[in-house]
């Protein structure tokens, strides 16, 4: 199945993949809208990165997701690539994954007339592998309503500013109460086989004041939770160090009241 084709067509054009049958779903308009309900946001899988980045609803209800979508590839790629494709292709560097993980998103799909729903945290099982069974079609990405006072952020390090694949990406969401961490989620892309939530760092921060020392300790935990590979973009060592740096930057920005929403 092919939607935007931004991941698939390069493989087809270079004869790395030779699909016998391709089913294009790009013109199914019912799968290409963003609905805001009391139960949260329902994002159609065919919504493009450009639409996500420009949507006032997404900016207001899932700010870090809009920021991440605005940093995917180049404007040309963002006009074609879809959120469903970004998740299905399951690149460790998928930029929409870390914000969706921190927002508690779930993926909804249909297969053989039955609907299934799975937390995004359980969706990825390896590089370019998801738990989607053959023949399944994603019908929505659900983002729950955010608790009052939540701030979110997305940061990305590429080898340049435009049209870059992430070396490390980080998303965080935070609710502070009387300067104490009431709720925090911290997710990374491109520094492990799959985008992941840094559970140890989150647990450590819970109930603590968000100050320089706690942030530094949480960043160390997050770096230890990463299991980065070396590739043409960066070494494993560099990725782990940048995990630490970007964790610190994201949490510091949120502690200062920056970040969206």
């Amino acid at each position: 199945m092919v939607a935007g084709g931004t991941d698939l067509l390069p493989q087809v054009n270079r004869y790395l993949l030779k699909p016998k049958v391709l089913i294009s779903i790009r013109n199914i308009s019912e799968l290409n809208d963003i609905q805001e309900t009391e139960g949260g946001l329902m994002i159609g899988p065919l919504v493009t990165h450009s639409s996500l980045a420009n949507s006032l609803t997404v900016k207001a209800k899932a700010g870090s997701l809009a920021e991440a979508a605005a940093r995917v590839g180049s404007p040309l790629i963002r006009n074609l690539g879809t959120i469903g494709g970004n998740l299905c292709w399951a690149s460790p560097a998928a930029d929409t994954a870390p914000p969706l993980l921190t927002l508690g998103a779930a993926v909804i799909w249909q297969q053989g007339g039955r609907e299934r729903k799975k937390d995004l945290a359980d969706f990825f099982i390896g590089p370019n592998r998801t738990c989607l069974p053959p023949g399944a079609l994603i019908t929505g990405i659900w983002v729950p309503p955010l608790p009052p006072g939540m701030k979110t952020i997305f940061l990305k390090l590429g080898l340049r500013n435009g049209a870059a694949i992430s070396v490390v990406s980080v998303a965080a969401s935070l609710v502070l109460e009387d300067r104490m961490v009431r709720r925090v989620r911290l997710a990374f892309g491109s520094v492990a086989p799959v985008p992941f939530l840094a559970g140890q760092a989150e647990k450590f921060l819970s109930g603590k004041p968000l100050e320089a020392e706690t942030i530094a300790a949480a960043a160390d935990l997050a770096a230890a939770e990463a299991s980065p590979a070396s590739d043409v973009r960066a070494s494993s060592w560099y990725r782990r160090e940048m995990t630490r740096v970007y964790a610190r930057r994201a949490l510091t920005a949120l502690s200062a009241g920056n970040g969206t929403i």
Partner: protein
Amino acid sequence: MDDWIDLSIVLNGAPHALKVRPNWTLLRVLREQLGITSVREGCSEGQCGACTVLLNGDPVPSCLLLAGTLENAEIVTLEGLKKGDRLHPLQEAFHNFGAVQCGFCTPGMILSAKALLDRNPNPGYEDIREAISGNLCRCTGYLKPVEAIYQVSRGRTSPAPEEDP
């Protein structure tokens, strides 16, 4: 892949009825069936922007589009910008500001610029750099295209006389 797909598209304002193979990209159809040579095959993976077209107004890489999925789409290429014998202001400005070196990336850059100006008639330099960030120039001549696009947005297609050497 032995089947033919009937395809109707509107290219540069004119309707076309075509027959295409399921695995043909829009880039291939434009160049080989329709003789549109302003779209260039650079990387075939959406990185370089040399094959940029406007699809329903948005700039996209035509190497990543399967032509058979584009029924009733409106496609604009560089050939569609001029009015009669008059070049589009962006084309004039690229010429007059010296924003062309080898020219391979120029059509894509101009189309990305047109989409930007259609959406935002008064862009800043940063908006312009962002808008053409998917159009790579291997001559690395970015300053003059950015300046040409900026000047067009301010109503100028050639340098002021006192700037002439």
